[in-house]
């Protein structure tokens, strides 16, 4: 025993010393960094403390995280280049991934103390990060928001703070392919008056036309369609207090529509539906010319039109004039947030302001994040819009008078709800659960998630 110990003790001691030296060095550098940006660190505690001024002679490094397609990665890189050309003392490191991996990666990064300085956010996760102090209240910084409509801006606001600034707006709508309608010998509906009954008849008629096309692609795996449906009845998926605000009966009716379509050939079989869900817009029924209609966001119009190689139309959801009120709503497509413990809050604020308010950034991004939320930017870049963007812009303009209000910011835990809905939706479509059982199960699981 002795010999073993004696041979190890000295190197071990030496190792310990080395570790101590290394940690001390690290602590020292950490202190040095903290000194440079003491104001930023202080702003977390006291609201009164003004954030550090942007100093054009100091070097700043920011990490900017977003999700998206290759097209978006390219556009964002152009925005970064435009910004750093103006402010050469700022370096921006891009950090991007696809939607599925984004939230896993972000949460892991935050847990490891490696929060990106500027973070692309989505409404479902905004409260998760805001209420837990990961992202900063942007009211503390010099970012102009007066050109953004109040009902849009307000979705990024809770607990008395502005935790995200919407970059653009979208509408969840029914996309239709007139060519497929014509092939099936079915007339395009009048979307200002059509009812849910008429919608189902149309979808089934197209499926039965013998042209091997479907009327509609199932969209029950996602909350927005159900939100529209519930709002038409004067209900909400989430109340402003962050609780569930719909009747189970509404969800049952919602699923019965899908089941009716599935049984009568208006939409594909359950297993094809599952495959389509994982395929994305380009592989959708509309994108591959195998369907007449699909539920998509307005900023997906161009991508699907390109995939289909034909012009598509944007339609209102059925039942907008049938129920108590209209259900459609403008949704901020995504938000920009700032890490609460970024080392360069002043530079981060400038970069956010640039992306939201500068027409130069607007000209690069166009409608990638939905139509620009800043109305001045929207007008300034309208000339560059693609045919699809113009169509979306006009569609939204028409809706302005019809839309009653926005949806409340979803509660903490809402990020889980999409997965819960997708799972129970397939249980219902495979008829392993009745819509009634599904509605019960959904309520139980969501209440636990947002508890």
């Amino acid at each position, binding site marked *: 025993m*002795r*010999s*073993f110990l*004696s*041979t*190890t003790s*000295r*190197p071990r001691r030496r190792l310990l010393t080395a570790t101590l030296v290394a940690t001390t060095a690290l602590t020292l550098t950490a202190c040095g960094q903290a000194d440079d940006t003491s104001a930023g660190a202080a702003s977390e505690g006291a609201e009164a403390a003004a954030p550090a001024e942007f100093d054009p002679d100091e070097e700043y490094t920011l990490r900017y995280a977003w999700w998206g397609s290759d097209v978006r990665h390219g556009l964002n890189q152009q925005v970064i280049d435009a910004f750093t050309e103006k402010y050469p003392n700022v370096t921006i490191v891009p950090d991007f991934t696809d939607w*599925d991996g984004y*939230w*896993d990666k972000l*949460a*892991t990064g*935050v*847990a490891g103390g490696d929060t990106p300085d500027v973070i692309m956010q989505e409404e479902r996760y905004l409260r*998760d*990060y805001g209420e*837990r*102090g*990961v992202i900063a209240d942007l009211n503390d910084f010099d970012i102009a928001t007066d050109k953004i409509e109040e009902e849009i801006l307000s979705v990024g606001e809770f607990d008395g703070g502005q935790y995200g600034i919407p970059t653009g707006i979208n509408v969840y709508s029914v996309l239709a392919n007139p060519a497929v309608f014509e092939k099936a010998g079915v007339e395009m509906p009048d979307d200002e008056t059509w009812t849910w009954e008429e919608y189902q008849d149309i979808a089934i008629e197209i499926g039965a036309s013998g042209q091997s096309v479907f009327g509609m692609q199932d969209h029950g795996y996602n909350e927005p369609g159900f939100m529209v449906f519930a709002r038409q009845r004067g209900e909400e998926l989430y109340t402003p207090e962050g609780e569930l605000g719909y009747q189970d009966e509404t969800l049952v009716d919602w699923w019965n529509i899908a089941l009716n379509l599935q049984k009568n050939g208006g939409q594909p*079989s*359950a*297993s*094809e539906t*599952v*495959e389509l*869900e*994982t395929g994305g817009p380009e592989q959708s029924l509309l994108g591959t010319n195998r369907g007449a209609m699909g539920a998509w966001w307005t900023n997906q119009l161009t991508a699907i039109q390109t995939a289909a190689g034909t012009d598509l139309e944007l339609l209102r959801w059925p039942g907008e004039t049938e129920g108590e009120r209209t259900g459609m709503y403008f949704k901020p497509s995504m938000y920009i947030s700032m890490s609460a413990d970024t080392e360069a809050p002043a530079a981060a604020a400038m970069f956010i302001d640039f992306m939201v308010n500068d027409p130069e950034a607007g000209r690069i991004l166009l409608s990638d994040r939905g139509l620009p939320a800043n109305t001045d930017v929207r007008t300034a870049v309208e000339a560059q819009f693609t045919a699809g963007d113009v169509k979306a812009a006009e569609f939204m303009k028409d809706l302005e008078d019809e839309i009653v209000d926005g949806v409340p910011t979803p509660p903490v835990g809402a*990020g*889980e709800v999409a*997965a819960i809905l*997708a*799972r129970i939706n*397939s*249980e219902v479509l*495979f008829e*392993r659960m009745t819509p009634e059982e599904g509605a019960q199960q959904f309520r139980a699981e969501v209440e636990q*998630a947002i508890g």
Partner: protein
Amino acid sequence: MSALSELSTLRKQKGGANSPTEKADGRWSLFFLGPWYIGLILITAGPLLASLYLSFTDYDLLTDPQFIGVENYTQMFSDPRLIKSLQVTAIYVFVSVPLQLAAALGLALLLDRGMRGLALYRSAFYLPSLLGGSVAIAILWRQIFGTTGLINQVLSIFGIEGQGWVSHPDYALSTLIVLNVWTFGAPMIIFLAGLRQIPEMYYEAASIDGATRLRQFWSITIPMLTPIIFFNLVLQLIGAMQTFTQAFVVSGGSGGPADSTLFFTLYLYQQGFASLNMGYASAMAWLLLILTAVLTALNFLLSKYWVFYND
């Protein structure tokens, strides 16, 4: 572990002697073991202990963990999705591992007969094992077993209308079992080596006594091979219990359709990274460790009754 035991045997051999050269030897051995120790502490032991601690906390990744005692463990008993994930994993393990070992043994017997181009065949059959756990193969699998995939195209030649195999809850798990069976290469190579170890004279003696091929197989090959079968069984069972990549990719991370491919590790991942319940996910990891340990211990206990060591 092995390095430690080597050290202690070294020590024993030296008795109580304590000469300067031996001291220097010890130092050098530590120096060379250093990287391994650092890896053990930073990559294995550290996270292991951290996850044990986290399993007793409520930890959402974004804020500091809160100690809550054994609540995560008691919660598991009333979690229907956890029970579902255990069922899925159990079916997968107990169906795919025996099938995979049978395929591996069958192929090893064929290849052992010394045909021409043996090396080529051996590599060809081993290839799936290298690829099987990869993301690319899982994506390919999704295509092959899709509604318009290769399998259904072949079936349609015979007038059979197939369906989306990976997207139907009744069949999705089977496609993953087939994928695992397909990666029989590693156990096959070990079986091949085992077959070479069986002395030729046993077969000679048996054939002189008039034993048929089949008889020789059951009375010589199988008993002589039992230690190898046991070894493969233990390894493959442990590996199968940790299956993640295939299920994650084929179902797009959801474990779907309708939770039919919700493997235990996939549910663990969902809890930890999607639902931000890292405390609960850590507790699940420890449950998996315990279950694996129990299964392996059981395996060793049972091995007494069927494994034949020729020594």
